[in-house]
């Protein structure tokens, strides 16, 4: 229950940062925090009491029912790589916006005309 509350706190901090901060770079950081909170929630759903990490060391078939779920871990690996691609492309677009308009705050960018 504590892990679910922590991941919900991460999601709320991420949403607050995207909505309330003025600089464009801080909004990108908030999006990354929100994505990491969702990853934490997905992995912690597959935990069983007294579980072990899913790596075999000997040919011993009696302990196989004590492993945690390996399937959400494999899907979250894919999601982390996609989050990296989104962050890199967003930072490249912010660099070009700063070169053209000489500013990178959303309040001043809202008042541009033409």
């Amino acid at each position, binding site marked *: 229950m504590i892990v679910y509350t922590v991941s919900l706190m991460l999601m709320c901090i991420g949403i607050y940062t995207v909505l309330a901060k003025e*600089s*464009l*770079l801080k909004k990108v950081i908030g999006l990354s925090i929100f994505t990491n909170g969702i990853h934490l929630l997905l992995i912690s759903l597959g935990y069983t009491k007294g579980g072990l*990490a899913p*790596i075999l*060391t000997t*040919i011993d078939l009696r302990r196989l029912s004590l492993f945690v779920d390996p399937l959400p871990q494999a899907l979250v*690996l894919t999601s*982390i*790589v996609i989050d990296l691609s989104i962050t*890199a492309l967003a*930072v*490249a677009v912010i*660099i070009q916006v*700063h*070169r053209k308009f*000489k*500013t*990178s*705050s959303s309040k001043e960018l809202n008042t541009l005309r033409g």
Partner: protein
Amino acid sequence: MDIIIKTTTRLLFPLILVFGCYIAMHGHLSPGGGFPGGVIIASAVLLLVIAFTQKEVETQLSEIALEDLKSIAGIALLSIVFLEVVLRPDIMHTQTPFTLWSGGVTIFLNIFGSLVVAFGLIIVIYSLIKEEWKSKKSKW
């Protein structure tokens, strides 16, 4: 940068490179695999770019050569996948489990996957740091 940072970087760069290659190659025995190994190799080159200036590092690792290497690694990965689907080689009979040479074709997939990720992230680092910003009037 200072001489302390330059000397420490010269000592640390090969250690981080070997650590990244270890995590990438032992993907079928311990946690890790292709993607974390490639990121660690790219972070070793990022340490070089921070300590020495980007122009000096680019004379050794040029950007055009990195693009060709990344494409070659991607083509090798695709060719291994298609050859395994079409030919179905029987490598598993010559391997013993729980050693380094095991796991069928996954060891080659791990190596080429880590090379694609590492070279791609070095190109991203070069593109984002490259030119200086001309304006000095803004706050961010």
